[in-house]
Every structure is written in structure tokens, then in C-alpha cells.
């Protein structure tokens, strides 16, 4: 029996999985990623001579639910014209009946990869603010993402932020297509998106998502995920980890997330409080809207108090001194000069 190298097998599999783009204006370049619902390919738009990303359902079978969800995803994203949300270019059907859509090809790094290289807290908070702005825009248009996580956020070369993968997003005023018949949950996968009645990613999902309570999902579900992303930015790790998805969901439901300052005591207390408030188990205990969360981030960046954290008098003084070091230096210099004048003038 002749052993075929794994790489060769993978290559053959990729060739076999490659979508037949005949009859479209797109030419396949290579596969970018594969998720639970579909795959994303880099393709060339031959009419406009530009590269775009093409998302397609993985299996070439007539899966009505998946197709409906993909079309819904495309429609949802199409209505969200915002610099922080990846724009949709086109929707269509391949010769094998699979639905696809094309979107802007984002050249950059996923947030989780980006944070491995850039750990400046100020910079990360500014990125977080941009994420908040994009999600707030979606909320203002009645759309809830429901799968926010660092892996679904791209950071471009110029610091631009794009919120990706609106595959399980929901328009709050519409009924959603039923979940796919065959859940594709991979055992032990805690960061991949689950399909089925439990939508989202265990490590970043809210308790209401972990319970599978679809009716309870609201914009505060995204606020929880934003809190979890803030937690990740502060600590470099997801709020909950564990061996299996089930284990993580149990923790999400029953345990408070470990205090970020346990991992790094240098994390500012207000930021810790903001992340934990956004991640409250009870949606009513979270920020009422992204505007309030974003406002707290801005206030912290500006050296002001945040709504999530009550400072002690000492902390308040310390923050004021930290913010006004130069002014204090000038005042001290002035007073020293006055003392000098007093002494040299010999009364």
C-alpha cells in the first residue's frame, strides 16, 4: 500500500472542495478560511479587475436553511454601510446551486493575532472603541451580531477595524431562518462558531446564548461579547476556558469570570470594572447600550472617571496628578521662584 503524503491529500481535498465559478465573473485564487457554515475564498472580479472575498456554503447540497442564512447574512451586511463593517458587493448562485456572496477582501490581521504583536493598551482601547462604533451602528439599524469575538474582527494596515462574519446576526424586527438541521459542532472547539440552537462561540457567548434562549437575545448580548473582547484585550485570554464547549458554557452560566487583575495587577481598575460590568450574567446589569460602554472607554482614555467604577479619593487625586503632571510642575516651579525671590530680596 502506497502512502500518500498528508500535504498531497490536503491539496487534493482543496481542489475537490473548490467551487466551480464558471458562469460567474469571478476567478478562483485560493481559499482563505473555512468556518462552520461556509468557506471564504479569495477570487478575482474579472469585470472590475480587483480581488474580492467570496463566501459560499461548504457543502454542495441543497441545504435550504444554510442558503437562507447565507442570503440573510448578505442582506443584513448590505444594509449596514459603515467603515467598520465589511461591505458586500454581490450575491449569486453557482452552477451547482450553492449560494454565494462577495465582499471586500480585507487585508489585515485578526484582532487576536494583532494583539500578540501590539500590546499598547491605549492603542488597543482605540481599536476597541472603533469596534464599539461599528456594532453600535448595527444596533441602531436593528441588527445584533451575536458572534463577536477577536477572531471575527480584522485590523487593517492603517489601523482600520472591520467587524466580520455576520453569519448568525439577527434583525431584531424580523423572524430568522431556522437553524441548520445538522449541527456542525466540532468536539473540543471552543472558539469556532456553533451552528444550531446555541448560536455563537462558547468562550465569548453570553449566558442567554449559552442557555440557547434565542428569545432573550438582544443588543445586550453583543454588549456582553464586547465586554469579553475588552477582557481579552486586557488579559490576552478569553474570559472562560476549558476542555470542551459544554464545560465552557457551564462556566459562562454559573461562574463569574476571573478578575483580569489576577492575571496582570497593572490593569487599571476602571477597565477591569468596565469589562466585568459589560459581562454581567444578568443582561439588566450590563451597560444599557454601546454608547455608554464606548463613552466609558473614551472617558478612561481622557483620564476621567468612568461610570462602571467608583474611585476612592486617593485614586481620584492620583488620577488628577497623573493627568496634570506638567501643570503641577509649572505651579511648583512658580512657587519655588517665589521662594527664591523672597529669599534673595532679603525682606
Amino acid at each position, binding site marked *: 500500500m502506497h502512502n500518500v503524503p498528508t500535504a498531497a491529500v490536503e491539496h487534493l481535498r482543496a481542489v475537490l472542495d473548490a467551487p466551480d465559478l464558471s458562469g460567474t465573473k469571478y476567478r478562483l485564487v485560493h481559499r482563505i478560511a473555512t468556518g462552520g457554515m461556509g468557506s471564504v475564498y479569495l477570487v478575482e472580479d474579472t469585470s472590475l479587475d480587483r480581488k474580492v472575498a467570496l463566501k459560499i456554503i461548504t457543502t454542495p447540497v441543497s441545504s435550504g436553511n444554510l442558503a437562507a442564512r447565507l442570503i440573510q447574512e448578505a442582506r443584513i451586511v448590505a444594509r449596514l454601510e459603515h467603515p467598520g463593517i465589511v461591505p458586500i458587493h454581490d450575491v449569486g448562485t453557482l452552477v451547482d446551486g450553492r449560494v454565494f456572496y462577495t465582499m471586500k477582501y480585507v487585508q489585515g490581521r485578526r484582532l487576536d493575532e494583532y494583539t500578540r504583536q501590539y500590546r499598547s493598551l491605549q492603542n488597543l482601547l482605540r481599536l476597541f472603541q472603533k469596534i464599539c462604533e461599528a456594532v453600535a451602528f448595527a444596533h441602531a439599524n436593528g441588527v445584533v451580531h451575536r458572534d463577536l469575538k477577536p477572531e471575527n474582527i480584522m485590523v487593517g494596515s492603517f489601523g482600520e477595524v472591520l467587524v466580520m462574519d455576520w453569519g448568525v446576526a439577527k434583525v431584531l424586527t424580523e423572524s430568522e431562518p431556522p437553524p441548520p438541521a445538522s449541527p456542525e459542532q466540532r468536539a473540543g472547539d471552543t472558539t469556532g462558531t456553533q451552528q444550531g440552537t446555541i448560536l455563537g462561540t462558547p468562550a465569548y457567548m453570553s449566558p442567554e446564548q449559552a442557555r440557547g434562549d434565542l428569545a432573550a437575545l438582544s443588543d445586550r448580548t453583543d454588549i456582553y461579547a464586547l465586554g469579553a473582547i475588552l477582557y481579552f484585550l486586557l488579559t490576552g485570554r478569553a474570559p472562560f476556558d476549558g476542555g470542551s464547549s459544554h464545560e465552557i458554557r457551564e462556566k459562562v452560566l454559573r461562574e463569574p469570570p476571573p478578575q483580569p487583575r489576577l492575571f496582570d495587577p497593572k490593569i487599571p481598575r476602571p477597565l477591569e470594572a468596565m469589562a466585568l460590568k459589560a459581562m454581567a450574567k444578568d443582561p439588566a446589569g450590563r451597560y444599557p447600550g454601546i454608547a455608554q460602554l464606548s463613552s466609558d472607554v473614551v472617558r478612561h482614555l481622557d483620564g476621567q472617571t468612568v461610570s462602571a467604577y467608583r474611585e476612592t479619593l486617593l485614586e481620584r487625586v492620583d488620577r488628577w496628578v497623573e493627568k*496634570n503632571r*506638567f*501643570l503641577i510642575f*509649572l*505651579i511648583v*516651579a*512658580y512657587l519655588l*521662584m*517665589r521662594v527664591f*525671590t*523672597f529669599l*534673595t*530680596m532679603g*525682606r
Partner: protein
Amino acid sequence: MSKPIIGLIIGGILGVFDGLTALFTPDAAPMIMEIVIGSTIKGLIGGIIIGYYAKKVQSLQKGLIFGFLIGLVLAFLIAAMPDASGNHYWIEIMIPGSIVGLIVGYATQKYGKGPESAQTSAS
């Protein structure tokens, strides 16, 4: 609060304070009222000029340099006036005066409402 108003208030307060420090100099004590009034007026004039500059130019560095220069010039005008015995107190007046200008320059750049952002219009 606008930057000129911030400059006016801080300049005025520092002017009063600056004038009152003359109390520590017994020779100047008999003229304390004139000194405080003069110093306050100097602070108010410097404050409003520096505040207006901060409203026009949003730059901490430039604001500090401008504040320093205004403080220095106004203090020079005061120091140029000799006392009853004909003495000038150049260093004693000009150095604190320029530091006061720096403080007002810093404060007006850091605090107060800046210019309204430009409105874009298709018309």
C-alpha cells in the same frame, strides 16, 4: 467654558496670587493694593490673549511658547517700572511672570471648549 474665559479666570486668579506674594516683601507692603490691582490686570490681559490664541491654535507646544512669551512681555513692562528708589526687579518679576504665562498657556490648551468643528456642506 470657552478658552478665552478659562484664560481670563486663571490669569486673574494667578494675577491676584502673584500680587499678594508681594506681602512677603516688607518694602512692597505699603503699595500692596496697587501691586495686586496691577498684577491682576496683567493676569487678565495675558489670560485673555493666551486664551484667544488657544482658541485659534490647537497645539500644546505652541500654546506653551506663546504663553511664555506673553507672560514675559507683560512682566517686562511691569519690571521696567522702577520702584521709589529707582531699582528694577527684572529677575524677580520676569521669571515668575513668564511661568504664570506658561501655566495659563498650558491650562488654556488643555481645558475649555475649542473651536467648533468645521461643517461640511454640499451647497
